[in-house]
């Protein structure tokens, strides 16, 4: 009898699985319930729309932004900043992380300083960046770079260090030299973990974008949110925040898709 109840409700087993439909249904509920709750509270009239606008108001405001304002321009410039800052960071962090994770002297040289700098809040660098780089695009890209690079290097180094020693030693006994071990064993073996690291740091890049635009910009999604605050356009603040969240979600899903597509051997059972 006890066995039967367990079999009938496998969804509540520890680390159990859900069917595809049930999973979708529950996920949808998790997204829609808070929205419904928000709608119910805001439409009830108990709260001033200045503090909590209704969902239709937010959608209207986003529509107006698109029609009369420069929503597409704001999105374009923000995406440009995030992608450029992120790519510059990745271009440096990838080789450096692989080297730190592979060679002890390089690790000994770079790791302490990287560890030190990554604890400095990137936002605190804004005055310095404005002093050194100015207030144009370079400044925002520099903030995103500072915010992501140091974390990225250490995480990639860790991904590389997690390559099993047996994989490396097997290559050694097959006659591989040092470069071949790095390029044919360590890098391909660490690739899936590195792509995951890039996915996670991409999220931070969006965070630092908003920080940079709040402080030192006159365009972009973050700046629009700040401007809306000055005019008490709470609906537009909501629209901006939700849009940034959506972009983050889309980028994240793109990374997951690339992961599945690039490493089919991880998903085949």
């Amino acid at each position, binding site marked *: 009898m006890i066995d039967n109840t367990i079999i009938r409700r496998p969804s509540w087993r520890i680390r159990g699985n859900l069917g595809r439909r049930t999973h979708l249904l529950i996920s949808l509920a998790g997204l829609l319930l808070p929205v419904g709750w928000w709608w119910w509270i805001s439409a009830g009239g108990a709260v001033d729309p200045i503090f909590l606008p209704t969902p239709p108001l937010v959608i209207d405001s986003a529509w107006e932004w698109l029609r009369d304002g420069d929503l597409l321009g704001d999105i374009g410039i923000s995406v440009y900043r995030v992608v450029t800052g992120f790519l510059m960071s990745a271009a440096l962090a990838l080789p450096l992380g692989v080297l730190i994770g592979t060679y002890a002297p390089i690790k000994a040289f770079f790791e302490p300083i990287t560890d030190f700098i990554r604890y400095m809040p990137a936002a605190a660098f804004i005055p310095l960046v404005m002093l050194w780089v100015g207030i144009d695009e370079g400044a925002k890209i520099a903030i995103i770079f500072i915010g992501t690079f140091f974390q990225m290097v250490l995480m990639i180094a860790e991904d590389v260090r997690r390559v*099993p020693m*047996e*994989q490396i*030693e*097997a*290559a*050694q*006994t*097959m*006659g*591989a*030299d040092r470069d*071949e071990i790095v390029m*044919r*064993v360590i890098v*391909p*073996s660490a*690739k899936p973990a590195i792509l995951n690291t890039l996915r996670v740091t991409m999220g931070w890049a969006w965070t630092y974008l908003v920080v940079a635009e709040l402080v030192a910009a006159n365009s972009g999604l973050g700046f629009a949110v700040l401007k809306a605050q000055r005019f008490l356009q709470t609906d537009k603040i909501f629209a901006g925040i939700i849009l940034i969240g959506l972009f983050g979600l889309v980028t994240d899903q793109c990374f997951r898709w690339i992961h599945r597509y690039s*490493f089919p*051997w*991880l998903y*085949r*059972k």
Partner: protein
Amino acid sequence: MTIMSIPRIQIEALDKRFETGDCEVIALQDANLSIAPAEFVTLVGASGCGKSTLLRIVGGLEPASSGTVSVDGKPISGPGIDRAMVFQHYSLYPWLTVTENIKFCRQLKMHRDVSTSSDVEAAGGRADALIRLMGLGHVMQAYPNQLSGGMQQRVAIARALMARPRILLMDEPFGALDAQTREVMHDLILHVSILEKTTLLFVTHDVEEAIYLAHRVVLMAPRPGRIEAIYEVPLPDHRDQDMKQTQEFLALKKQILAGIRATSGMQTDHDLLEQLGNAPAH
């Protein structure tokens, strides 16, 4: 084997010490061992006896503190393609298919430089032959994580044999497999060693496995890690599972197990009871 022939592996006065803080651990002390071509030697012993360390030094993966290892009379100074190694696990490349794993060494400079077109052709035949020999024909295009533990070790052995090493070093290769699979793998590796005339040095903690596979069993002991005794296995070259029930086999097993117990430094329940002064009467 003539008396004058050069041993395939000659281990002389080998020492290995590790520094851990201010205390020094002697992993291996004055190890001497000579292994003939095509001989199958197994290393057994309690944990900490240095059997894996010895294997890794022969493989060139760790340097010795002093002493030498020679292969065919020449001292080694690092890993080499004459000595392939099979690990207990995690050594296959999960992003490569079975065939690609087996052919991995073909893309390395060392093997590319020496190869003529006929070598490449021969290598293709070699890979096919190994796939057949190891019974991997039906999983050639599979990835390692789609295979059972036993099949994964077959791939690892085939990959190690690809470059025709004279010596195969195996570090508890079947330690993670279930008993039935292990028996199948035993007969397979014996078949391979005879067919390929490979010299085998094989580390295990399973005494039965050590005896069944080997011409000679080397018993090692810990603190300091050392070679304690060497036993000839009184069984014919062609083994079968029934031999495990013979008097000779069981007697040798008993003798080696007693040797491990005596040197392991670990107390059995019986020893403890004796110390407490209430050992059961014999």
